[in-house]
């Protein structure tokens, strides 16, 4: 069943939903990346909640004008308008008052959402509002998706993607260094607004499939996931689009394979699973990589300290150090050095005195600054320079009584 869903063999509606969610996932991942890099990920939360009053007002207006209140294009236009007002309110509160952005986000999202709920209760009492099903826009609903809806989502998603590609350079610049961007003549405020506008467009487009509460997840989770895998902006954008698209497609397929599996939550949970895997396993920024790196570092410190202790004839109390030395055949179980161990220890001690000598030479200041007790001296000096150091240290000297 799942396999059939993944290969788009579950009928017309399931295929429409799968294609729509994939496109939505890609668009949300790509646009969300710039929001995430700008460290304003939660603005999307305010934007998405601020769509609700617009939906309500659009419905009331369309019914009042004698039309069908459920016209998706009309509802989306209304939601875009009120989300834009919400976005401007967040900007205004942050710029004009001393409230921090998180407070502005929370205030706008709760107020707009509250007003939206008031409008929903008004609609419930209207005769045309009995079966309006506007509540579906809270959590998304793909059951009755029409071809026209899918086209709307596809066109909207494609437009967002194209605009993001056009604006990617200025948006990247503003995300990483707003002062520099301003100094080079970019209007950072307008570019920020453009970024938010793209996010808003994706939010509005995604209302039908995942609903306004969960679209935030599609805007935030894929970029965070992608950030684990690479440090280059272009790759983060591409990878976020990819994970978003995969989550959209697989989520839609899983949801189509059985009843009572709502599409929106499943898409979000699939992308959370991708996030969790990346958090644990990604090379570089992942938890596993960090643990391995830490262990390697610990091992090097223990070996180094163990060798220095051997060279100076100190006993080794630390079990881990002794075990490491034993495993390399540099020490015996009672802590006495082997022949090879004596050689290594002498080298370690020699390196320490080389570093000490290096610190006294002004010419090598930069090299000496790299001393951390672990870096090999061969990594910072050439063989000639080391020989020169050795000459200054000299051989064994007679001790004057």
């Amino acid at each position, binding site marked *: 069943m799942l396999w059939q869903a993944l290969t788009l063999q579950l009928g017309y509606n399931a295929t429409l939903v799968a294609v729509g969610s994939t496109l939505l996932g890609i668009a949300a991942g790509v646009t969300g990346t710039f929001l*995430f890099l700008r*460290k*304003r*990920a*939660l603005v999307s*939360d305010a934007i998405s909640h601020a769509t609700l009053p617009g939906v309500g007002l659009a419905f009331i207006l369309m019914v009042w004008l004698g039309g069908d209140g459920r016209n998706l294009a009309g509802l989306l236009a209304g939601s875009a308008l009120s989300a834009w007002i919400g976005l401007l309110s967040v900007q*205004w*509160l942050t710029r*004009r*008052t*001393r*409230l*921090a952005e*998180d*407070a*502005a*986000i*929370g*205030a*706008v*999202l*709760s*107020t*707009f*959402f*509250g*007003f*939206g*709920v*008031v409008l*929903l*209760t*008004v609609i419930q*009492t209207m005769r045309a509002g009995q079966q309006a099903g506007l*509540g579906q826009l*809270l*959590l998304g609903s793909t059951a009755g998706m029409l071809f026209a809806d899918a086209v709307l989502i596809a066109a909207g998603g494609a437009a967002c993607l194209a605009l993001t590609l056009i604006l990617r350079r200025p948006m990247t610049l503003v995300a990483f260094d707003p002062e520099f961007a301003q100094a080079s003549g970019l209007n950072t405020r307008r570019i920020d607004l453009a970024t938010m506008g793209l996010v808003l467009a994706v939010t509005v487009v995604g209302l039908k499939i995942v609903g306004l*509460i*969960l679209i*935030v*997840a599609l*805007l*935030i*989770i894929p*970029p*965070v996931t992608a950030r*684990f895998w690479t440090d280059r902006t272009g790759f983060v954008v591409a990878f976020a689009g990819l994970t978003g698209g995969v989550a959209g497609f697989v989520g839609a397929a899983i949801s189509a394979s059985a009843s*009572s*599996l*709502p599409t*929106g*939550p*499943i898409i*979000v*949970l699939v992308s*959370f699973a991708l*996030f969790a895997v990346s*958090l644990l396993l990604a090379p570089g*920024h992942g*938890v596993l990589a960090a643990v391995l790196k830490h262990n390697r570092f610990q091992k090097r410190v223990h070996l180094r300290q163990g060798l220095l202790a051997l060279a100076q004839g100190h006993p080794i109390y630390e079990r881990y150090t002794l075990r490491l030395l034993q495993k390399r055949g540099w020490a015996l179980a009672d802590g006495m050095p082997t022949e090879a161990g004596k050689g290594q220890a002498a080298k370690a001690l020699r390196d320490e005195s080389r570093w000490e000598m290096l610190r006294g030479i002004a010419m090598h200041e930069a090299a000496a600054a790299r001393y951390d007790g672990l870096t090999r001296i061969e990594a910072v000096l050439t063989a000639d320079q080391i020989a020169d150091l050795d000459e200054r240290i000299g051989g064994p000297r007679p001790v004057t009584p």
Partner: protein
Amino acid sequence: MNGTEFVPLSLTPILIGVFAAVACALPGNFLLLRRQALIGDAISHVVLPGIVVAFLVTGKVTTWPMMLGAAGAALFAVALIEAIRRLGRIEPGAAMGVAFTSLFAAGVLALEQSDTSSIHIDVEHALMGNLESLIWLDAIGWESLLDTAALAGLPPELLRLAVTLVLVGLFIRVFWRPLKISTFDEGFAQVMGLRTGVLGLALVIVSAIAAVAAFDAVGSIIVIAMFICPPAAARLMTNRLEVQVAWSVLFATLSAVLGYVLAGYGPLWLGFTNSVSAAGMIATVSGLILALTALFGPCRSRIGAPVEG
């Protein structure tokens, strides 16, 4: 309007609304100043999975297991946010966004999977609460306030929220100085020997208790709004924390009373027959109060100096 109508139908919802609003606004002051304002938002999203799990475990719609489940979910969410932030070295906003949306999605999924649809937990109820239905049927007028038999019929939410409000108030009163110091200068607080980590966690736990108790009665919209809007509006009125807390209590009370009255009677004044959602209206009023203070509040500007003239 006379007592025979007001006391049974409006008195208890208004009181419950005020208690819930103040209980959320009090810790909200500190969360706002600590740049943790959105914790309230995150907590109110994860309450849903909490009550669904509690329902799946106990199989019954009873208050206490559900509140425990919600509180557990809130703490789990806070732990998850912190884990994601530390392990992945992700900025707090994004970590929060990842955690609460995923937990909310899990809650919706669990809700759809179980046959809870037959009973009254549903997403809209969780969002909007049922403030209007918390009426006091045993009352016949003002004199019922002295009648023990009638008092026994008060909605249980009223007592629960009153206790919560007292708890929250006591916490803030007892830990006033440590909270104040650690909020404004965490480094100094640590030097003085205060355990700022424990204190911060305690504040979050108290907020979670307030959120869960309020959520049960009035829905999560009010919770989010009251955590943020009254303290934010109060912040624009003054530079002193004591005065800010007082303003926030006033604003919270005002939002609750005005919102309830506008929702219940406003449409009637305009010639409509049905009232609108009280929870939504209370949130709207609190936002309007914030908008007014943002326009005219004496300490609205970033420099903090009162505007002359």
